[in-house]
């Protein structure tokens, strides 16, 4: 974690906008994800029906989450695994640490997991003397940089390959300093060679889960690197950490979600690897872990179930809303100061950590609605951001100047006569102030606008004033 907080949003955003390297890296969001998703969607005529189906099945699951969690737990136990419920992040960390200690682990490998980031697992394990090695290439890179991921499916989207090469030279000791790392395959080959060692020596492997299936007790991960499979199958203990809303009722339901997930995220029809894990290795299995644990994290989610933000629990973490968000595209993920950036993060972060901690996030949106449009779960993200703004406003949190301006404006807007008297006076005055130029390049009280844009001047009299006159002329 780099210590940024959602409370520093404005300063972080300004820094991000001024960061030329970051701006160059962010072009990849547009070049990569957006076009690929559009093509993938276009090739699947039933995409919208699939989306309705997925939304309905997630809503159904959330409505009966208690029942499905119990059913899921029974199936995991039947298949020889164990389920641990973790109400808080601290509980989840402690449970994982205990399993690792019991296994006598000094090294654990990890597949990419946002829940692991959410609970701050790596620092907790390291503090107990256990090395946690990220094996997803992107996660490996941010681990050696000591950063948080800047995107939920593409952790290093904020970096260019030259920066990554520098990190590798710095962090991967014992290799020739003058080796060539200019091409992406060079970087991949070096990481692969280093990580191979970790895969075969780790005592515990920790993965996240894209889905949990109640019908079979399986956990599902999707990856493009195969690192998740090696993490899950080579060590003697496999720990799955997942939040409770990852549950779906059946294998069939999982397939419905999977058909949307990769298409929406990376624009692939399906990821290179889709891995189902059900319990530990059975007698006669040539490989697989001897223990299979699932740590189910709540961390505020069951509270969301009963409130205004339940629909957010449909999220399958595809990243489409980030990819299509003009704000995310302008400032990148780190500026949000939350592990969950972009539109989904603007709704989820205050739900998990409190609106007082993250009031800028749901406010910093033009409500362009593209997030909701591309969301494969049809989550009404702008409406929920507005809901947060309402809570924020009710608490009296917006700056005094903002609240005062809004109250004054509303006072007039509710009183048409007063409103027209005011606008009828102000518009011509302002127009006269602009003179023949037709615009303002700077204006007191409007610096926030005129710093970067001119303000077009009013034409002169208001419409209503002029209209009244034309009516007067027409009158018999």
């Amino acid at each position: 974690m780099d210590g940024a907080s959602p409370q520093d949003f404005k300063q972080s955003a300004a820094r991000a906008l001024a960061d030329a390297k970051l701006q160059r890296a962010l072009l990849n969001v547009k070049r990569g994800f957006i076009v690929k998703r559009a093509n993938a969607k276009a090739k699947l005529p039933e995409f919208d029906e699939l989306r309705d189906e997925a939304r309905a099945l997630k809503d159904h699951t959330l409505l009966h989450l208690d029942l499905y969690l119990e059913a899921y737990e029974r199936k995991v136990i039947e298949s020889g695994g164990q389920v641990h419920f973790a109400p808080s992040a601290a509980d989840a960390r402690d449970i994982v640490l205990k399993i690792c200690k019991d296994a006598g682990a000094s090294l654990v490998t990890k597949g990419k997991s946002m829940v692991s980031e959410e609970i701050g697992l790596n620092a907790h394990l390291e503090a107990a003397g256990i090395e946690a090695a990220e094996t997803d290439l992107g996660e490996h890179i941010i681990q050696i940089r000591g950063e948080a991921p800047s995107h939920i499916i593409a952790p290093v989207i904020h970096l260019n390959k030259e920066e990554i090469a520098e990190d590798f030279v710095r962090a991967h000791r014992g290799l020739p300093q003058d080796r060539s790392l200019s091409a992406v395959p060079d970087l991949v080959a070096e990481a692969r060679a280093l990580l191979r060692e970790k895969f075969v020596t780790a005592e515990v492997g920790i993965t996240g889960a894209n889905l949990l299936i109640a019908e079979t007790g399986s956990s599902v991960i999707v990856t493009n690197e195969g690192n998740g499979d090696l993490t899950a199958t080579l060590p003697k203990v496999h720990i799955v950490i997942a939040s409770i809303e990852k549950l779906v009722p059946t294998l069939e339901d999982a397939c419905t979600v999977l058909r949307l997930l990769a298409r929406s995220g990376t624009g692939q029809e399906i990821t290179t690897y889709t891995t189902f894990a059900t319990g530990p290795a059975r007698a006669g299995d040539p490989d697989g872990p001897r223990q299979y644990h699932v740590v189910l994290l709540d961390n505020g989610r069951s509270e969301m179930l009963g409130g205004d933000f339940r629909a957010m629990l449909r999220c399958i973490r595809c990243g489409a809303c980030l990819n299509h968000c003009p704000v995310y595209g302008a400032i990148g993920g780190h500026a949000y100061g939350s592990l969950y950036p972009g539109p989904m993060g603007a709704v989820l972060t205050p739900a998990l950590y409190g609106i007082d901690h993250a009031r800028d996030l749901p406010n910093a949106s033009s409500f362009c609605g593209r997030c909701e449009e591309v969301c494969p779960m049809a989550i009404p993200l702008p409406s929920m951001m507005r809901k947060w703004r309402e809570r924020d406003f009710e608490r009296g949190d917006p700056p005094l100047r903002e609240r005062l301006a809004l109250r004054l404006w509303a006072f007039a807007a509710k009183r048409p006569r007063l409103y027209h008297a005011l606008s009828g006076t102000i518009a011509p005055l302002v127009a006269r102030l602009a003179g023949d130029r037709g615009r303002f390049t700077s204006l007191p009280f409007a610096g926030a606008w005129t710093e970067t844009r001119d303000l077009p001047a009013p034409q002169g009299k208001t419409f209503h004033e002029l209209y009244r006159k034309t009516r007067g002329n027409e009158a018999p």
Partner: protein
Amino acid sequence: MTTEATEKRPHVGLFVTCLVDLFRPSVGFAAIKLLLDAGATVEVPESQTCCGQPAYNSGNREDATAIARTVIETFERFDYLVAPSGSCAAMLRVHYPSLLADDPQFAERARALGAKSYELTSFLVEVLGLDKVAARFEGNVTYHDSCSSLRELKLRDAPRRLLASVDGLSLTEMEETEVCCGFGGAFSVKYPEISSAIDEAKVCNIAKSGAACLLAGDLGCLLHIAGRLSRDGSKVECRHVAEVLAGLIEGPAIGQARKAG
């Protein structure tokens, strides 16, 4: 005009919008001309101010609701409400019904008004069946869809269809027409740097299109884009689509200097 239309001309209440009222009355007059020419009767109730979006999108539900009730009381007597703005029309069509859903006195009235509220070009094309206008505009233009038109009203064709009938006008689409201009109402002054960065990308696409004029159906976007274009010293002019369709183009473009004399 069809015979039904001549039997009873639809009575339209024009929702001027606060931005048109303050900044660009010519858009309101253009709207009236277009509506009259297409066979509607038009009235502009004076007891209108704003649709309430500034309050609604700032989380001030109470004031937004009060304003919405006034708008409903003012406009429900008309056959239709028409606004020269996708954003205000979407507020009325999409958001009033949800804003007032739990208000026993207004829930049904909000739904009823929402159902007969239209953005200007979509009303002309979809309700009045207009497919051409008698206007002339020399030059190559590009069209900016407002996010609310595009995504809340699912409206893309109507302005383009009418523009296609304007003599002398050719339309070149810019890249990324579906992307926001970064205005977002109060967003543009609460987060000016971000808003402006998004605007900059939009202005780049406008420049790349090679068009001499940018048209749009929402004055908010237009003020934002025009302000950036003129700051950058661009020669591209910005006008509201209604002004071009109505042939009211003598005055300076948005944010442009008045001609000498």
